[in-house]
């Protein structure tokens, strides 16, 4: 009996459960993680598995959010055949799942760097990356000692990673050098515009800015803008500022900045070259942090497992005693692809950082610093130089210009809303996704046939697509929609979910980049920088609005459309083909959304969620201006664009999106007809 059990046990593979982000906003990281896991499994199998037992992984999806991560752990817990777990890269997800991880009681390796994770008393959690507290100390040491920075500013994401990084940096500055950051600025994940923050950092007289940014698209755009605005301070960025994705966004704009990271793609480690070559051969791209973190974590598990696999396993169904595996991990010394690993009593496994610079859009490692460089050396009082003066009006002017460019796009999208609302009393909740689709189409076409012909083709495709859109969301419910306004809201909500996920499937989660036909430089006039593309946005919007004005005032179709908007029934009685007019309004709305999309794409790049934010703002803008009113939509758009910029820079960046809605609710309460519109609050 015993012998039989032994045999069947030997045939049973050793399994590690992985929770990663297969779907949702970080699906790209999850895809890379899956690839890293695949290579690790093959390599470990090639080395003979775990004493003859096969090595396998089971992957569960966290859907890129906390509840999803908790669910995924529950699922893995229910299996009962796992030897160990790998938790997601995102700190907030790991913090959410920590009570579950504690209950499951299996050794769990995570790549999340928030310091708290290993300090909350969960004895099962291990971290195979440098934690934020240590990373921030090392970054501060480099900034002060090697780069000679004294007036240090901080820019951070408001998410768990960014806020954790901000406190770690502030603490490190205080503890090591007895100085405070001269400015702290923040943004919400996915904000599309960072001018206010960058200017505030300059105005505070920073000589160096340390950034803690979670997502590559954000830091990519931040660095691009940092160059376009000609900011005078140096930059030392968290790992995301030097990854291939963000360098692909910034192109050469990131050249010359510094990056502190525990993962440098070029770091020379014994396993590194073969791993990278194999990864490139298999997947046609360089391995990133997400892939390498999982690869190293699985290798760590394999090392520890080989030491305990022979021993008695107690009650465990996996044949591995969790307590013994935990002990073995604590004793493991391993040089992985990313660097050397050894675990301290808290489960922290990495203790060094690579400082790199960016050269020709590639990371170039400068040096490796570890704990031994950390020393308390308070700077004498008065060692911080005074801030250089700056021109206040230039900052305000810059912000207004920025606001007008962004507001132009709101205005175009808002006009799309107004057109449909006037023609058929419809509000299209998928308008933002039309913006997004147009952006993607341009991204696809611009590289093949050039930006300008691409733009024209996209508009033609959008016009044709409007027919499909109408047939799917409006025609089947036309009668119902006349009685019940929610019907069209629901069909377009469905369409919006559909289009977002279609885009994710076709174009992937990686933000698509588009080159502007106007270039990515900037014009400087009297201390104000106007990026050339944004000048282009304003020009094209002005041209489009003029064309629209002529269309409405001087053409028969335009006049008929206005008649339908004023009174649909009477217009019908007068012999105007109302159905046809509605079809034209659909085409117009889709085209305006499309135009907004192609103008938006080169500044803010394209990703599946890009449209939702813009369309909510545009809709608010049209209500603020006076819903149903064409001048109201334009003025409302411009007003909102400028208000957002000013409120963001002078009041609060984190609440900037909220400020737009506060404005909206105030207008709705006190002047429901809008600032520039006729009384229409009763129309619904």
């Amino acid at each position, binding site marked *: 009996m015993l012998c039989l059990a032994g045999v069947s046990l030997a045939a049973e593979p050793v399994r590690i459960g992985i929770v990663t982000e*297969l*779907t949702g906003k970080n699906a790209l990281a999850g895809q890379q993680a899956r690839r890293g896991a695949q290579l690790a499994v093959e390599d470990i199998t090639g080395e003979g598995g775990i004493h003859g037992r096969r090595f396998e992984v089971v992957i569960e999806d966290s859907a890129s*959010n*906390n*509840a999803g991560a908790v*669910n995924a752990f*529950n*699922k893995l*817990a*229910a299996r009962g055949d796992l030897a160990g777990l790998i938790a997601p890269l995102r700190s*907030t997800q790991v*913090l*959410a799942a920590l*009570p579950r991880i504690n209950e499951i009681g299996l050794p769990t390796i995570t790549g999340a760097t*928030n310091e708290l994770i290993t300090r909350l008393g969960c004895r099962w959690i291990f971290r195979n990356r440098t934690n934020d507290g240590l990373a921030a100390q090392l970054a501060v040491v480099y900034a002060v000692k090697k780069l000679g920075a004294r007036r240090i500013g901080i820019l951070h994401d*408001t*998410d768990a990673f960014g*806020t*954790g990084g901000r406190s770690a940096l502030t603490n490190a500055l205080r503890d090591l050098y007895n100085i405070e950051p001269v400015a702290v600025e923040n943004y*919400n994940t996915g904000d599309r515009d960072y001018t206010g923050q960058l200017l505030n950092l300059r105005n505070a007289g920073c000589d160096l800015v340390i950034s803690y940014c979670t997502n590559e698209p954000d830091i990519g755009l931040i660095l691009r803008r940092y160059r376009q605005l000609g900011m005078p301070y140096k930059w030392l960025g968290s790992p995301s500022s030097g990854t291939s994705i963000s360098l692909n966004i910034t192109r050469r704009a990131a050249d010359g900045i510094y990056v502190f990271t525990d993962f440098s793609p070029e770091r020379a480690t014994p396993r590194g070259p073969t791993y990278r070559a194999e990864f490139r051969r298999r997947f046609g791209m360089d391995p990133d942090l997400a892939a390498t973190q999982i690869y190293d974590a699985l290798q760590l598990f394999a090392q520890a497992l080989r030491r305990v696999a022979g021993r008695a396993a107690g009650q465990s169904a996996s044949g591995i005693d969790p307590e013994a595996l935990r002990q073995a991990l604590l004793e493991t010394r391993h040089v992985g692809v990313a660097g050397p690993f050894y675990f301290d009593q808290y489960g922290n496994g990495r203790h060094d950082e690579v400082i790199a610079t960016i050269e020709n859009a590639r990371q170039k490692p400068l040096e490796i610093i570890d704990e031994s460089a950390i020393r308390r050396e308070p700077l004498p009082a008065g060692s911080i130089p005074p801030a250089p003066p700056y021109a206040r009006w230039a900052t305000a002017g810059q912000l207004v210009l920025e606001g007008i460019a962004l507001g132009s796009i709101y205005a175009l999208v808002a006009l799309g809303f107004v057109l449909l*609302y006037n023609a058929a009393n419809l*509000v299209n909740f998928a308008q933002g996704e039309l913006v997004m689709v147009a952006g993607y189409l341009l991204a696809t076409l611009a590289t093949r046939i050039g930006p300008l012909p691409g733009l024209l083709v996209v508009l033609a495709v959008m016009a044709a697509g409007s027919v499909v859109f109408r047939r799917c*969301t409006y025609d*089947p*419910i036309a009668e*119902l929609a006349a009685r019940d*306004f*929610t*019907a069209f*809201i*629901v*069909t*377009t*909500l*469905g*369409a*919006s*979910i*559909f289009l*977002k*996920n*279609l885009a*994710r*499937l076709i174009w992937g989660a990686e933000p698509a980049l588009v080159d502007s036909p106007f270039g990515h430089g900037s014009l400087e006039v009297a201390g104000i920088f106007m990026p050339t593309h944004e000048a282009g946005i304003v020009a094209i919007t002005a041209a489009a609005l003029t064309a629209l004005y002529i269309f409405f005032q001087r053409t028969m179709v335009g006049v008929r459309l206005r008649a339908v908007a004023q009174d649909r029934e009477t217009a019908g009685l007068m012999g105007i083909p109302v159905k046809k007019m509605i079809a034209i309004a659909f085409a117009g709305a889709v085209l305006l959304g499309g135009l907004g999309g192609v103008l938006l794409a080169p500044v803010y790049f394209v990703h599946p969620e890009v449209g939702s934010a813009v369309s*909510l703002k545009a809709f608010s803008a049209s*209500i603020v201006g006076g*819903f149903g009113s064409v001048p109201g939509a334009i003025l409302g758009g411009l007003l909102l664009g400028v208000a957002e910029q000013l409120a963001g820079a002078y009041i609060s960046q984190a*609440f900037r*999106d909220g400020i737009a*809605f*506060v404005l*909206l*609710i105030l207008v*709705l*309460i006190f002047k*429901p007809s809008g600032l520039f519109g006729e009384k229409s*609050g*009763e*129309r*619904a």
Partner: protein
Amino acid sequence: MNHQGTKTPRLLLPWCLGVLVVILPFLVKSPYSMHLLVMAGIYVIATLGLYFVVGLCGQFSLAQGAFFALGAYGLALLQQKLHFPSVFALLGGALLAALFGLVVGLPTLRLRGHYLAMATIGFGEIVYLTLKNWIWLTNGPDGLNIRRPFWPGSVMAYDRIYYFVVVAVAVAAAFAAIRVRRSWWGRALLAVRDNELAASSLGVATTRVKVYAFMASAFLGGLAGAMYAQAETYISPDFFNFDLSIMLVVMLLVGGRNSVGGAVAGAILLGFLPEWLRFLKDYYMLIFGALVTMLMIVMPNGLAGLWRKAVSSKQ
């Protein structure tokens, strides 16, 4: 109603469902499925809340996710900062949400249709940003861990007991919704829904009955949120985003907005759908979106509409 023949099956069905609801937690094997059952019950409560505003009153609210969040954070903060016992914290969370329902409802319910929808989106966005950025109060994006009100020794046992708490509340909420619909207030709400002008000319204080509906909706949304916090034992802002509000509205519409049974069925169906369709993997949300659009086209009155059609065609 008076047909003798149809009375038996009509009584039989609720009994069968009742028995199923009671034995279900003993049939499921994994803690995971158990947790899903709890979540489905919580969605039922939140969707029933929405029924007051959208179903009875005909107003389109996209703020239910925000009320859900207020209930969850209300419970957490009452427990952690003011050391309320669990039961009072639960009620406190729901009442906090109802209070916000009053504060938001008073000015915005004068608006109609798209305007109200937009104002509720704005409110939800502000709540979300506040939860995320007021770190001194809410611990920001890192979220809060919630104490369990009792601990029977394992997650499975906890969820199983908590399931019955959720079901009891959901059943009470459903009965309350049915009672309200048959009351003067319910008839006033329906009158407002069908023709606000006519209702007000008949002496209905339209804004007041709407505000009450909004508060009831917020109360149930908050209660559901507070129970979510106790079931999940962890909350963070990112769960309470715009998608949650959309999901709750879609649950109600798929079930059938004019029926209490529909609200319940929609919440249960969509609560489980992601799990049943998990084999679709990357395609799930794509198909979900297409389904939402198609459901509106094929069955504008939701599951309840289909059911009514099926019953009436039998007779």
